[in-house]
């Protein structure tokens, strides 16, 4: 979506003022600047590179650079107008579509994207534990509880001796080779 300003000079002037204001404010740790940065971290640069936050886009290839600049002006104005963060973000969504949000919302259909990895992790863990359980149940009962150490060293007798010695030093007869 293209942001249109009444006139090009107006856009330029407001942009220059906003940038200057924000940069100098940023140096002083101004709460407005802090809020600006906080909000900018929640927004994406609406440009084809699709990889930078609003605050980070310095990609001159960006065809949407003009949109980004306009968005910055808008952001600074909104920041100063005292709207809540939520409202400002909503205004951005209306202007640029949901793609402008750096993270998918945690409500509605987008919630699925957040939940699924953990659902998959839960299912995977459950499957893993089930497999472990199944295998342990299959363990032949005749086998001694502690298996004797097997010769180590992958066929290299010298290495096997070294590893056996390490194990002996540690009082550890278990096989890690």
């Amino acid at each position, binding site marked *: 979506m293209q942001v249109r300003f009444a006139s090009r000079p107006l856009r330029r002037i407001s*942009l*220059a003022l906003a*940038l*200057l204001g924000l*940069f100098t404010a*940023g*140096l002083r740790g101004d709460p407005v600047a802090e809020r600006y940065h906080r909000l900018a971290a*929640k927004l*994406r640069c609406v440009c*084809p*590179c*699709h*990889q*930078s936050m609003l605050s*980070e*886009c*310095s*990609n*001159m*290839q960006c065809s949407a650079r003009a949109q980004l600049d306009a968005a910055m002006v808008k952001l600074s104005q909104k920041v100063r107008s005292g709207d809540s963060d939520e409202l400002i973000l909503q205004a951005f969504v209306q202007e640029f*579509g*949901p*793609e402008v*949000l*750096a*993270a*998918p919302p945690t409500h509605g*259909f*987008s919630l699925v*994207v*957040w939940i699924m*990895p953990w659902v*998959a992790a839960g299912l*995977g*863990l459950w499957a*893993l534990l089930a*497999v*472990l359980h199944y*295998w*342990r149940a299959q*363990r032949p009962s005749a086998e001694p509880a*502690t*298996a*004797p*150490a*097997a010769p180590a060293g*992958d*066929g*290299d007798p*010298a*290495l096997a001796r*070294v590893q056996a010695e*390490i194990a002996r*030093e*540690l009082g*550890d007869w*278990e*096989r*890690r*080779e």
Partner: protein
Amino acid sequence: MQLFGAYAVLLAFVLAVYAFVAGVVGHLRRRRRLIVSAERATLAVFPALTVAVLCLIGLIFRNDFTVAYIAEHSNRALPFYFKIAVLWSGQEGSLLFWSWLLSGYAFVVLLGGRLRPGRAADELSPKHAHRALVPLASVILAGVEVFFLALNNFAASAFASLPVGTPADGNGLNPLLQYSQMDIHPPLLYLGYVGFAVPFAFCLAALLKRYPGDRWIHITRRWTMVAWLFLTIGIVLGGLWAYKVLGWGGYWAWDPVENAAFLPWLTGTAFLHSVMMQEKRGMLKIWNVWLVFATFLLAIFGDFLTRSGLVSSVHAFAQSSIGGWFVIFLAIAVAVCLAAFFKNKDFLKSENPLESTASREAGFLFNNFVLLVAAFAILWGTLFPVISEWVEGQKISVGRVFFDRINVPIFLFLLFLTGVGPLLAWRRTSAASLKRNFLGPAILGAAVLALCLAMGWRDPYPLVCFALAAFVLAIVAMEFYRGARVLSRRSRRGLALSAVELTMRNTRRYGGYIIHVGIVLLAVGIAGSGFNQQTEGPMPYRAKLAVGPYTLTSLAYTQDDNANFSSEALIVRVDQGGREIATMYPSRRFYKASNQTQSMVADRSTLLSDLYLVYAGDDPETNQPILHAYWNPLIAWIWIGALVIGFGTIIALLPSRTAAARRENPPARVAETAEVAQV
């Protein structure tokens, strides 16, 4: 030359089709001569494509703009060292390059492992037993070649002419690609992607042939390591390119195409661990087969993502409408894998049950579990915009915030396991042993955590990462130290020499540990981003800007001009603690042929931090230059970690000093040797 190149690609296609068809018929009917002839045809694809690639390079250097691809991607003023990158900078060229690499792999596989004519597979020594698989594996590789060569000939020909006329000059190479990293990042990445076709071919061949024993898994592991090495270095170089070129101060944006390369890396890493379960314990055979299949399919899927434009990406250098071809190929590949698996799955029965959850086997299972959860989360997040568009009619972007939030805890857990895993014994580990081995490293980890907290750092993820890094490094160091000390006592050599000796005696194990050290260094570099600082501001003459420990002062502004681009640079003095330490030149270039502007990042890198400056352009109203400045702690450790991983992988690929003896007399599996010991 254009026609010659086009015919060479056509010839390669015909050869590949013949190799595939003759190979399939030869194997079905057991016609030895047909199989040998198919192998020769597969071998011949490589020289044919080499000729084609050389023709294209020749045309690029001759500035032959009748060729549409060259008119689109090159220009006269392009320096010669970037002209070579034209080969892979667009759809058609990169597909040809891909086919050439694939044919190169098939060539090496065949040359290295072809059965001598008249020699039967069962006459092979154990060392060469896997050669029995080479004929069928080469047919499978020829099948993959058929697909890519069909694209080269019928969907995206690099030799096609412009429909009308010949322009005086070309459009030029995308400025984003005019960097030295672009001369090596894509070839390495492609070598990785394409390389996974080889383990896939061996694995599928073993399954189809119901190849007895585990020899096939050794060769599959070795080729996976090779492809994995290339992919690892290719991915990291991609990060380096993004860092040095894109100018946003970061190296990894979870861009769909970055994710696409990461997915086969994750499944490949999982396979490299679970393969040990099969080698030592005869377990997880089905799982391993599917990991190899998944890795190959994900590599093709990654190529599809890059080229199809399904998801929007910064890597949109090579997009077109060939997505449909990939979908068909992927569908066929999945169908073949499924059919081969269901027909032969009884051949993949596990030989041993698991005995204890505190065992190396269980450690590997958890390793695989974590890697696959990460792979799923990344795949899911990458595809979600497409899914949301289908379901809701609007694209929801899933960017860095999502991927970081989901993946950081997963990878921290993986880091923890990287420390724990190597200390677990095969079959079972006692609580006493765990305590003995873990106590020291755990105390060190806790000390590092306490130190970080004492320094006032509060961001939990970097802190946990530093603590785990200390934990894992201590474990690896202990492993080397113990072994080296025993060896040094025996041989009366120094500890360092003994550590080398130890490594060379079991390259795989200690190479693996070196790789783990690389992973730790990489993790430390990534954790450093938790402390990043950035600022931006107008920089007229003498203006100052502070970032991290530095004060930047604008000194001057210069301009330059050459045939390829005009440029303007800011001259920035860097002071630290009141002392001048450097002068930096962030600049912007205007590329004449492509009419594109590009920021040239100035980066001052030390082991502790990077100072990264981007000249973002001039304020439209005041004409004052705007500077973005980033202070990125520890970032250099990412590149160092990658070098260590590369080194460790090469070590792990070397045969161990006693390999010859071992190959003739392969080590028995743990369970078997245990029985022998009992007797």
